[in-house]
């Protein structure tokens, strides 16, 4: 008779306890040099527990099964020319922004967790981070594999990693992940696992992926939900690390609260791009940004912080402002892209009548009053042939690096929100009090920010003219501009025209 299988709890304990040891040839502080300078006090690493109690054998087994399912769907999508079943080729602008903006974030998260998987002193925490490092690499790979199919048929998908380090709007996700990666390990994990993954990632992967399903993009749904199945584990890890740090020592609370405030705001600003994807770039949107924010942040996030209040942790600073901005940011960000559409690696398009009716319904207090007139004015100009893209380059926020487009939504929604501070004799500009606070706490870090607009003016981006800069980005002429009349548009028209013949054959 075979030996009785150990239970989950016991197996997890054997994997994560006693695998490490007190080093004697070298001092522990030399072996783990990074886990004390941030001021987080850990008295007993053995209190760390992964609630899923996942062991390596189960991890490999389940991940392998996820991969098999995912690649089976991608193969069948490619064999059946799934790209022709999309709601519209303009939808792919969202996927172009995803592969250039989000996929490199996954890779950055992989690097960050690989670092933590080496440098946390506790074996349980190291193993959890090692698994997550592998997950994040898997996400980057599955996204590249899925989207490479679209790259055979559409513009703008050819050089995501080259572009991530250069393009003006991609500096937003890049600066977010690099801010976390250049922090200490506890701040990194608070930023990525908790502020981003627990509090906000549902907004990226759940309603947006459901939106992909709604628009016939089964390939994206598949990688999205496959990634999200790992994400649930990461969220749980994020909550666990927060509780663990708070339980270890009372001195940890103010440090964690400050990180929470900072990284909530950083991640929230980054998600402004997702707001525009969800409300404008999806041909059909199953749920508005505002609705998603209400469910996933106000309601679910509220429940989370209520649970954490027993440790003294408060809702992140400026969360009320983020909720007030939910009525505005998708419109503001899509306006920026439309006004600089000659310098984006995806196509822009004005909302159709049908889309505007939907936006009016979803945003009854703001769309008709503030944003519809702008889009209608641009539509008239386009019709008359007088529309021009913005000639100058926008001023960027020193911290989030988003052009200064956000407004004073709580007092005067037509007034741009500007904040300024001085450091070392120079002035620095911000989009919000949230970003200004972050700067003022660590000015030496943020004065070094690589701001794309400044870099262009300093002559570091291929040359002084727009075509030179776009060439340096490796944007091809067919990647930018209006969707209507683009190469993608014409190809789509050909397919839809040819569709009948194919079916008859």
């Amino acid at each position: 008779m075979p030996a009785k299988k150990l239970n989950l709890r016991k197996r997890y304990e054997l994997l994560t306890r006693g695998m490490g040891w007190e080093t004697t040839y070298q001092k522990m502080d030399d072996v783990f040099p990074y886990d004390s300078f941030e001021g987080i006090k850990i008295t007993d690493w053995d209190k760390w527990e992964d609630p899923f109690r996942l062991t390596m054998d189960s991890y490999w087994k389940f991940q392998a099964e996820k991969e098999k399912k995912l690649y089976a769907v991608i193969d069948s999508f490619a064999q059946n020319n799934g790209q022709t079943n999309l709601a519209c080729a303009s939808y792919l602008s969202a996927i172009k922004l995803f592969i250039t903006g989000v996929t490199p974030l996954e890779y950055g998260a992989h690097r960050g967790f690989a670092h933590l998987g080496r440098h946390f002193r506790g074996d349980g925490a190291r193993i959890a981070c090692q698994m997550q490092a592998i997950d994040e690499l898997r996400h980057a790979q599955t996204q590249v594999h899925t989207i490479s199919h679209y790259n055979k048929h559409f513009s703008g998908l050819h050089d995501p990693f080259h572009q991530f380090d250069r393009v003006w709007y991609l500096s937003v996700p890049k600066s977010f992940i690099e801010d976390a990666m250049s922090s200490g390990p506890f701040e990194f994990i608070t930023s990525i696992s908790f502020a981003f993954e627990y509090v906000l990632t549902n907004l990226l992967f759940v309603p947006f992926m459901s939106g992909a399903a709604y628009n016939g993009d089964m390939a994206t749904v598949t990688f999205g939900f496959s990634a999200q199945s790992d994400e649930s584990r990461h969220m749980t890890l994020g909550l666990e690390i927060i509780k663990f740090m708070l339980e270890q020592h009372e001195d940890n609370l103010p440090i964690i609260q400050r990180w929470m405030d900072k990284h909530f705001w950083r991640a929230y600003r980054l998600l402004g791009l997702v707001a525009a994807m969800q409300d404008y770039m999806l041909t059909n949107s199953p749920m508005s940004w505002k609705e998603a924010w209400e469910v996933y942040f106000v309601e679910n996030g509220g429940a989370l912080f209520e649970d954490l209040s027993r440790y003294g942790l408060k809702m992140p600073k400026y969360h009320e402002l983020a909720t007030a901005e939910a009525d505005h940011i998708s419109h503001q960000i899509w306006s920026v892209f439309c006004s600089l559409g000659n310098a984006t690696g995806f196509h822009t398009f004005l909302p159709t009548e049908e889309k505007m009716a939907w936006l009016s319904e979803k945003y009854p207090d703001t769309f008709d009053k503030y944003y519809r007139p702008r889009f209608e004015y641009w539509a008239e100009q386009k019709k008359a042939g007088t529309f021009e893209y913005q000639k100058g380059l926008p001023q960027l926020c020193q911290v989030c690096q988003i052009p200064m487009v956000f407004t004073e939504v709580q007092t005067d929604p037509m007034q741009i929100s500007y904040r300024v501070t001085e450091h070392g004799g120079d002035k620095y500009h911000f989009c919000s009090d949230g970003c200004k606070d972050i700067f003022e706490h660590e000015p030496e870090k943020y004065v070094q920010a690589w701001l794309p607009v400044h870099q262009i003016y300093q002559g570091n981006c291929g040359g002084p003219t727009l075509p030179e800069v776009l060439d340096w980005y490796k944007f091809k002429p067919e990647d930018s501009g209006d969707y209507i009349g683009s190469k993608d548009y014409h190809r789509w028209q050909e397919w839809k025209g040819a569709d009948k013949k194919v079916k008859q054959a």
Partner: protein
Amino acid sequence: MSDKKNTVFLILQDNEDARPIIEAVEQDNPDANIQYQPGMVRMEAAGRLLVNRVTVEENLGREWDVQELHLNLISLGGNIDEDEDKFEISWR
């Protein structure tokens, strides 16, 4: 804080593998609110939501490892307690 229990939730992919699990959740959590959205199923309940191995096995007609839940899991909200027999999500 009021007596009102905060909402916990579990989201699974809307596919054949997840169906016996969704049905088990409906059976074991009669007050749960089940929402079908494109590509996914969101299950919500006040304070606590339980996935019971035995119920899933009855629906599925075979043995089921609770960790198989990972394969079709999209998201969740709440503290997790998992062992051989159940997967439970709760807010205190």
